[in-house]
Every structure is written in C-alpha cells, then in structure tokens.
C-alpha cells in the first residue's frame, strides 16, 4: 500500500472539554490517506471524545489545537460540512431516528454528500439497487432498509448499519468507534473486508477497538495508546499484543517508568 507523504488527517495539540472536565489534554496524530491507525486506551481515556470532537458535536468543546483534513481546517466547520469534507465517525451506540426510514435517511445523506462533491443525485431506484446489494454483502437484512433508522435493531444490526453508511458514503477518513462490539464473527469479517476495500481506494481509518483478533486482521500501520487525554505510546502490532497481554494499567506503569 502506498501512502502520500502529506498526512490526510493532521491533529495537533487537540484539547477538548466536556462540560467542566478536560478529557483530551493534548492529542497529536497523523493519518495518511489509505492508512489505518488503531487507537487503544482504557475506558475514559478519551477515544470517543476524539471522534465526537472531530465530528463537531456541540457538547465537545475544543479549547485548543488544530485538526486538518486534506489541509482544510475542520474545527471552524459545522458538523455537516465536516462530513461533506469526507469525515465519517461511526458511533459506538448509534441512536434511533424515530420514524425516518433507513433507506430515506441513507439516500438523503448520500445525496447531500453527492451535491457537495458536485455529483448528480441518485434517484430512489438507483439508490435502492446499490443499497440492497451492499446490505447483502454486509449481512444486513434487506428488511431493515425499510424500517426506521436503528429502531428495534439489535446491537450487531446497528453496527452493520453503520458499515452500510460507511460503504455508501465512501468518506476520505473514517473513525470507527468500537465497531466490533456487539458483532458476531461474520460481522467482524464484514468489517475487515470493507475496511480493506475502502483502504485500497484511499480511505484512511482510525479504528478504536479493544479486541486483538480484529486488530490483527486489519493489519494497522500504527497502533496508538491513549492515556489521560494524551497519546502515551505509539507502535505497531506488537504494542497491541502487549496491551492485550498485560492490560492498560501495566502499560501506564511501564510508560511512567
């Protein structure tokens, strides 16, 4: 896999507050196009906060730092413009969207992104054909396309639905927050296959995960450990294996020593 020298995502000294608590003290990381970075960290270390802050969630206040996507400063942009610029953040717990049919939600989102890219909108027929095929590949029952978004979906179905959105929207950078939690073995295979396909097309990934099995299959370029709102350690698969063996508490002690 070839990566351009200029990182697609450049985060510098990002400082983020949720309410009165500063969750990210200072986070810096680079992700080249087509690269895959695995982000690990104990509960509460700030992994999800990084995703929400990059996405522009109003509850996550950026107090300092910079985040560039393809050279464009993300932080002044409203959430939808960050998405249209190519940022996709999958949710750890995707919310219900009551009454909004999944296929309508997906098509509306896709056409909003198409419009921003100067591409023609998809009509309902073309969209449905593509969505059905992709849903089938991801193991998402076709019936869920006609149901309100995430309403009554199981945990695994919600995650597969996130993958469906990812596959259709084809972002430049995707942050997948514990996409494997709640997934069965086939679901994890679907994640790996989709990530590999999109990486080959140049999509970069930040994958938050606790599970070595999927991380190994993803073959990350970099593994980062987040601790107390900072990148405490950077490495390769060996770092992920060490964390899996010894846990985060032991890693923190080692880093301090």
């Amino acid at each position: 896999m070839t990566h351009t020298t200029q990182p697609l995502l450049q985060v510098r000294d990002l400082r983020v507050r949720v309410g009165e608590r500063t969750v990210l003290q200072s986070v810096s990381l680079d992700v080249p196009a087509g690269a895959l970075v695995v982000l690990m960290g104990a509960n509460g270390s700030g992994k999800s906060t990084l995703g929400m802050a990059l996405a522009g969630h109003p509850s996550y206040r950026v107090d300092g730092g910079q985040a560039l996507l393809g050279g464009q400063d993300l932080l002044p942009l409203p959430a939808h413009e960050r998405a249209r610029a190519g940022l996709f953040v999958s949710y750890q717990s995707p919310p219900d969207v009551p009454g909004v049919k999944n296929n309508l939600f997906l098509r509306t989102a896709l056409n909003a992104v198409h419009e921003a890219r100067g591409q023609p909108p998809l009509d309902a027929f073309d969209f449905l054909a593509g969505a059905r095929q992709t849903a089938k590949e991801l193991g998402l029952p076709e019936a869920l396309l006609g149901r309100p978004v995430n309403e009554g979906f199981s945990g695994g179905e919600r995650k597969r639905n996130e993958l469906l959105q990812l596959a259709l929207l084809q972002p430049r950078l995707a942050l997948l927050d514990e996409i494997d939690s709640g997934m069965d073995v086939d679901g994890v295979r679907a994640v790996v296959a989709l990530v590999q396909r999109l990486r080959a097309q140049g999509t970069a990934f930040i994958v938050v995960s606790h599970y070595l099995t999927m991380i190994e299959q993803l073959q990350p370029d970099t593994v980062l450990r987040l601790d107390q709102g900072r990148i405490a350690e950077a490495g390769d698969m060996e770092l992920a294996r060490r964390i899996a063996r010894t846990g985060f508490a032991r890693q923190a002690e080692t880093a301090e020593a």
Partner: protein
Amino acid sequence: MDSAQADILAAREHLDAQGWIARRSEAFHHLPPPALPDWLAAHDDAPPLNGPGWTLGQGASGVQAHWLDAHDPAQRAELLAGLPRPGEGEAAPFAWAHRALCREGLRLHVAATPQRAPLCLQLHHQPRARAEAPLLVLDVAPGAHCVLIETHEADTARPAVAQNLHAHIRLGQGARLQHLRIAAPQAGDRVAHHLHVQLAEGADYAQALAATGSGYHLQRNHITLQGAGASARQAALLLLGSGQIDQQTYTDLQAAQCASQVETLVLAQGRAHAVANAHTRIAPGSDGASVRQRLAGVPLAGHPRLILRPHLEILHDDVQAAHGATWGALPEDALFYARQRGLDEAAARALIIEGMAHALLERCLGPGDGVLAEWLQGGWLARAIAQQLQPGEEVHHG
C-alpha cells in the same frame, strides 16, 4: 313555511335565546371561538366561491353516496335522519348554528363486502360559501372495513371562510374504519370541525389527524364506545408555524373491554398558539377498559404557546389507565447523527420532524401498504412541514 324553514328558524331562535359559547366555558376558555355572527353571516358583499363542496374520489364502488339539499324538506329529513338533536353541552351552540346554516350534506353508507376487503374512499371538501355548515354522515355496516382519506385543503387562493362542519360517523358491530383527516385551512379562515363517532360492539375506529393553524381552528372529536370490545385510536399531528388550533377529544367508554388511545404531537413555532385537550371518561360497569393518553408538545423556535390538557374521569374499578403530557425538544442525538452524515441543519431538522410525524400517524393507522401508505408517502407531510415549520430563531422559554 315548510318543515326545513321551520327547523332553521327554530335553531336560530334557540341561539337567540341561549346565546353563544360563554367566555368562561371550560372547554373553550383557552381559545374562545369567534362570535356567533361569524358562523351565520352570508357575507353578501363578498364574491361567491366556486368550491364544489364534498367530492368523492374515483373507485368508490360499493358505497352509497347521497348529496342532499338541506333546504328541501324531504331531503333535509333524509339528511338528518337518525342524528341527535343539538343538546345543551358546551359545544352545543356550534351544533345549533350548524342546524341554522346547513345548506347541504353528504350521506355515505359503506356495506360489508364478502371478502371483508377494505373499501377505500377519498373524500375532499372545498368551501362553497364564505360562511358554511357542511354535513357528513357516514354509516359503516356491521363487519365492513373502510379506509377513508378526508382532506380539507385550500387548493387555490380564495377569500377567507368561516366553516362549521359536523360529521356523524357510526360503526356497526365489528366494523372497522381507518380514517385519515387532513385539515389545512388558509391563514385567515375560521374553521370548526366537529366529529361525532359511535362504535357498536367490537367496532374499531382509528383516526389520524394532521392539521395546521389558522385564524381560528377547532378540531373536536366526541367518540362514544357503546358496545363491548369496541376500540378507538386517535392521533393528532398539529403543525403550527403561526395561527392557532384548539384540538379537543372527548372519548366515552360505556361498555366492557373497550380500549381507547389518544396521542397528540404539537410542533409549533413563532407565536403560534395550540391547545390539546384529551378527556376520557370510563363509565360505571366498563369492566376491563383500557385507556391511554399521551400528549407531547415540541416548541421549535420563537415563542409558541402550547397547552396540553390530559384528563381522565374513571368511574369504575377494574380498568387500566395511563396519561401524560410532555414538553420537549427534537431529539438532539438524532439531529447530530443526521448532520454527521452530511445533512445541513435545516434538512436534518425537517427529516427528523417528518419522521416523528410519520411515526405518530403509523402508530394510529398501522404501517399498512395500500392507499393510506401511498398517501402518507405522497409528500403532503414534507410540504406542510416545509411551509409551516421553517427554521427560525431559537426557542425562548419563560
């Protein structure tokens, strides 16, 4: 003087003697209706209207329809046959005013089909006069299943009207009616719709109303579950960018094993004023009755005034009842989720609102597929939301 003229005169005399709705009236004190002359005046100096009154859509075979002239004694007798005389209740002056002004009416009779397949009716009403009192009488035979889409929309610009509409709906034993009502008057209209619904044993009635605001807009249901095992579901979606609406539902459970659900969602902004009243009465002897009321108000922007009034009157022990009223905001997590997928704020908001509206109507009517689903997916809701609920200033509290 013929019998029709005598009946009209008697109604006017009753109004003269008893007067109009009192300002202190419990049912109407939040949004008092315009004075009596508005509901009777002929506006002789105004240009005539061209509306056809009631029109029944194509494909309504299997239904008997009679348009009747209320000024013709014989036709008036046929039109009013079996209907109760206006009483002395709080809304009775509207009923007397209707008797005094009613010019024509439509009687429909839906028979049961051997296959019990639903009979689908599309009924549209356009005003014929500046002040009018249309009448609809619908009888659904025992065992029949009917789907009725009833629309009141201002298709083209016309002078403002005062419309005092009454509908009497009677469901025979085991009959079923799914009733979608659209009431979208013009801004200056004064509209009062009164529905009187009676359910026999085992009958099932579902009414989903979508209504917008106007100068004065009353939607009042009085539903009586007379037979054991009857059930009624009422859902109301009130969309108000401006103007006002007063929605009143009175449900009376009079027999055992009856069930009633009332759900109202008010989405309002600007200086709109909405009142949602739900009053359910469970009569003595109504063993196993089940009642639920759920009223929700979502102020979207500006200073809308939303008044939600759930009320239960329980006169029997062996019942299940729940009610509640909530004021809240659009679901922020869903809004942000949509924006993170690329929808701008206005598009995300419209999508979420339309979803909430669809969910409400489908909970009442059922998801289904046929003519109801087609209508719901046909774009009316999206257009109404776009027209009524433009993104605006922030909500102000206090």
